[in-house]
């Protein structure tokens, strides 16, 4: 019996098939990773909760009205000026810090602000309160949040560069890659507690 040779399969159209699939995946693919401004909501206060008394000078008030105009500490302000104003407020360091577990944090020794008596005492006491109207545009709200966060980021970066010669962004990145490194963790924690992000969203005023 003479063995017949098996005819070779024509692979010429293989590329076409592959191209077809490729184009399909090219069209359906979305590369963007989900990212956003992360916020932590405050826990629901119990019914008999009495809010602590906070000195007026430790609150940085930002109001946004329904026409997307901004009122900061009673004066109108452009979005571009907000970051510097927030930085000046946070970094003022005019008095003693918060008393935590009976231990006073003392005056802010890393602040570079004006140390004015009329502005915040210490970064860990400085509260930024954002009050928006129900009719405010979400885009504007995000822009304001972004500027405030930027103020914190810049202050944190400055402190980290001074103390560890590396920016805070880099420090966080390193820590993310090496979660077990106690030294890095300590550094990150220190910067975070030095400039804690205290941005509170006041309940919006309603439009009727």
């Amino acid at each position, binding site marked *: 019996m003479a063995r017949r040779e098996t005819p070779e399969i024509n*692979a010429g159209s*293989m*590329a076409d098939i*592959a*191209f077809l*699939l*490729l184009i399909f*995946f*090219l069209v*359906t*693919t*979305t*590369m*963007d*990773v*989900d*990212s*956003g*401004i*992360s*916020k*932590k*909501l*405050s*826990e*629901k206060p119990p019914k008999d909760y009495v809010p602590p008394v906070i000195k007026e000078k430790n609150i940085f008030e930002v109001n*946004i009205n329904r026409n997307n105009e901004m009122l900061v500490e009673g004066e109108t302000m*452009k*979005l*571009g000026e907000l970051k510097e104003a927030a930085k000046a407020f946070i970094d003022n360091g005019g008095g003693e810090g918060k008393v935590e577990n009976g231990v006073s944090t003392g005056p802010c020794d890393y602040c570079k602000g004006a140390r004015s008596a009329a502005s915040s005492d210490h970064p860990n006491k400085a509260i930024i309160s954002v009050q*928006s*109207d*129900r*009719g*405010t*545009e*979400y*885009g504007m*709200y*995000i*822009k304001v*949040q*972004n*500027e405030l*966060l*930027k103020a914190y*980021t810049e202050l944190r970066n400055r402190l980290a560069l001074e103390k560890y010669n590396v920016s805070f962004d880099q420090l966080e990145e390193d820590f993310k890659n090496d979660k077990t490194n106690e030294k890095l963790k300590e550094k990150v924690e220190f910067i975070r507690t030095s400039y804690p992000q205290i941005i509170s*969203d006041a*309940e*919006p005023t*309603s*439009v009727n």
Partner: protein
Amino acid sequence: MSKFGKKKKEMPAVNTASLPDIVFMLLFFFMVTTTMRETDLKIENPQLPNATEVKKLEHKSLVSTIYVGKAKDKRLGTGDKIQLNDKIATPDDVTAFILNERSQRSEAEVPFMTTSIKADIKSSVGTITDIKLKLRDVGALKLSLSSRKSSEIQE
């Protein structure tokens, strides 16, 4: 100098035998990176705000997404609509939505769950606040306001 009148040499054909290999390589790359949209939007594709201070959302399986924007179906009115899973809902439904999302994960993972709000820049803060209040009531405190990363913000 070369001689004239020499017979032109024929161009050798480019060997295309490795073309499928190249294409397959690309194909696998896109197959791996592709993510298909799992829910179809009942609202208009939200135009996300731009921000510089964004953080990447990690642990994708622990993220529940709430969409806010205008409804595609004009009969539903022109105000802001909230979409949970694949239907338009009211802020009151957010509680049930979060509880349902939680029941699908193990108990140990619940504290790490994040809610991502994908809202259109034109929607109003009031709607977002309604959702936030509901989230706070149910104890889903980790929130991410979805925005696109951009290098500079224009006023």
